[in-house]
């Protein structure tokens, strides 16, 4: 029996969810925050409605894609589950997700919960609920100014899982997580790749995790799969990649991702090595849940890229692609993808420094923007926008782009229109977190307007339904 307090909290939050939907507001943290004020134990109580298991997915990169893929697999299997979609990955957003799926009495039960969780929120969340598994995709530099340094984030997560029965699912190729087993004593499952045709031997510019987590000596790499992920060992203390439970092998990346996970063949319409890691992580969790191979195969093969992660708009006859970039690795991935596109390109980069973006914009200097400044990259123009348009413009200028092709329009709408006025075959809109939704709105409005009355609001409506 739930108390009046709990029921009030649920009712108020449901009303707020309803209201924000009517107002077209994307914010999903607010209803949860209010509900937690009314009943501080609301999340704990609703988590009790999960009959089977809870899974927390965290890490720097790929947690949204990985979580969505696992959700697709559970959906395919027909399980009921709570899932905080749309990147609302703080404890308030997770509370909102539970309330949204709950009935007014807080009694509807579910088989699973999939909780994409911001790294810094993992310790908070673990105080209120106990998952079977915490999956850590990887650790990269991301929004450091919010947490201090990466070391302290990792330390807080370790402290939070110590002395629990939680099982960890870890990336065997990431030197920043190998000490989790020693430091926590928990049961760890590892996923990782065998040598692939796409590995490199050269040290790239990634800065994190090249030092041994046990003895601080510099690590030796036999090969790099992607950024600091690869096959490594420490010549000082002998530590090395842990043994994998889920091994990715025979990787092909064109025309789509295709590889084996142990003896299961997987294919996906996604692109890029980082997505191969996301798929491998999702399949590993599916195996732990105990889902049949054919269900996993079918779900991954049918899972398409989502909003903000390469969304397309047709504005008249102009092809526009919007991408979310939020850290150096993400920006590098996007630039690498851009480089594989041989079309002539107009580039738009909206850089904000609000809380959600990270207040410190210096991360753009950690990305290899130089990778696309060569003459054959096909970049014809660069429009810089947002609250820190100046910093963005300097990054491109010092990467070697001719100042003549760089324009600055701090206002998003003016910037988007200026970009579309340039000559190009494809228009790429790179957006940091708090510029993503406003820019997406402008782009879909322009797309709608250019298509006349044929399909009013078609794109937008489809998106809203999927977001719920």
């Amino acid at each position, binding site marked *: 029996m739930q108390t009046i307090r709990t029921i009030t909290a649920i009712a108020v939050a449901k009303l707020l969810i309803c209201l924000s939907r009517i107002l077209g507001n994307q914010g999903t943290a607010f209803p949860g925050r209010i509900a937690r004020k009314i009943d501080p134990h609301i999340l704990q109580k609703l988590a009790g409605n999960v009959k089977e298991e809870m899974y927390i997915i965290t890490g720097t990169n790929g947690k949204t894609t990985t979580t969505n893929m696992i959700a697709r697999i559970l959906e395919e299997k027909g399980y009921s589950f709570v899932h905080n979609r749309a990147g609302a990955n703080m404890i308030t957003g997770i509370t909102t997700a539970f309330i949204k799926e709950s009935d007014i009495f807080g009694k509807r039960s579910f088989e699973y919960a999939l909780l994409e969780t911001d790294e810094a929120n993992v310790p908070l969340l673990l105080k209120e609920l106990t998952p079977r598994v915490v999956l850590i995709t990887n650790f990269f530099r991301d929004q450091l100014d919010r947490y201090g340094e990466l070391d302290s984030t990792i330390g807080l997560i370790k402290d939070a899982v110590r002395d629990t029965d939680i099982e960890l699912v870890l990336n065997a190729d990431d030197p920043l997580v190998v000490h989790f087993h020693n430091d926590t004593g928990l049961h760890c499952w590892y996923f990782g790749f065998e040598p692939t045709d796409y590995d490199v031997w050269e040290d790239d510019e990634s*800065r994190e995790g090249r030092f041994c987590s046990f003895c601080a000596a510099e690590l030796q790499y036999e090969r790099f799969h992607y950024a600091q992920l690869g096959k490594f060992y420490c010549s000082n203390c002998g530590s090395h990649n842990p043994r994998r439970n889920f091994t990715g092998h025979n990787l092909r990346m064109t025309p789509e991702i295709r590889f084996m996970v142990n003896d299961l063949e997987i294919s996906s319409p996604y692109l890029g090595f980082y997505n191969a890691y996301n798929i491998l992580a999702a399949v590993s969790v599916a195996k732990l849940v105990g889902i049949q191979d054919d269900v996993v195969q079918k779900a991954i093969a049918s899972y398409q890229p989502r909003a903000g992660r390469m969304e397309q708009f047709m504005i008249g006859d102009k092809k526009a692609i919007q991408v979310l970039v939020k850290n150096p690795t993400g920006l590098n991935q996007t630039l690498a993808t851009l480089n594989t596109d041989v079309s002539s390109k107009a580039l738009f980069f909206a850089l904000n420094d609000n809380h959600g973006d990270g207040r410190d914009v210096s991360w753009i*200097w950690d990305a290899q923007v130089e990778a696309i400044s060569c003459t054959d990259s096909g970049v014809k123009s660069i429009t810089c926008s947002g609250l820190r348009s*100046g910093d963005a413009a300097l990054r491109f200028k010092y990467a070697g782009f001719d100042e003549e092709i760089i324009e600055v329009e701090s206002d998003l709408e003016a910037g988007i229109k200026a970009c579309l006025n340039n000559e190009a075959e494809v228009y790429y809109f790179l957006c940091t977190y708090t510029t993503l939704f406003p820019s997406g709105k402008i782009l879909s409005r322009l797309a709608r307007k250019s298509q006349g009355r044929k399909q009013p609001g078609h794109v937008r409506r489809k998106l809203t339904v999927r977001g719920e």
Partner: protein
Amino acid sequence: MSKIAQFRIAHLYPRLMNLYGDRGNLICIQKRLQWYGHDCIIEPINLHESLDYSAYDMLFMGGGSAQEQRLASKDWLRQADDLWAELEKGLPALCICGAFQFLGSYYEAADSQKLKGLGFFDLYTIYEPDRLIGNIVIASQLTEETTTVVGFENHSGRTYLHDDTLQPFGTVLEGFGNNGQDGQEGLRYKNLIGTYLHGPLLPKNPVVADFFIHAMAERQGITISGTLNDRLEDFAHRQTKQRILND
């Protein structure tokens, strides 16, 4: 047209000490020297390597995480005397965050252990758990005119210039600076600047970048001629300053 000069910059411990986009400072100096018609190479210097400081035109070192900072500081001490001799002769050097802290007598870490510094200046740093994080604007007397310098600071160490005759890099207009108390930011000695400002520092503050470039040229006995088009640099500087002062 003067003849093309070749400049060498030593980038100390790039693998250990490279947080917060600080390598943007090197990209900035290198590009600007090229635009001025000269050549510039950047040489990474790693642990256990010895270097001839007199052969370089500039030194750069950034900040790192606690563990990595410890490794670098120990290694740096090996050649302290050589370095000091060159700094006295006017070697341009930019030391950010952790590298700035090393210039003093000690750094008192979270566990109250004192990490020995180079001892070049009578300044010291004490760890405190709450970090000083945010945008910062300072006023600096780097050149004859007072100029504003903008950046972003993120440090747990509080640095105190113990000696009144030490000159800070600037005075804080908005932000924390060395310790959040005395209004001082960084340290300036001859052509050495120690500072907590990253973001990175130089691209948005072309006055500071050119201060180093002119000092590098002077060390080689040449002068840099011409001016660069700093339209975007000045815009970014103004935009950041307004963002900070209106926040």
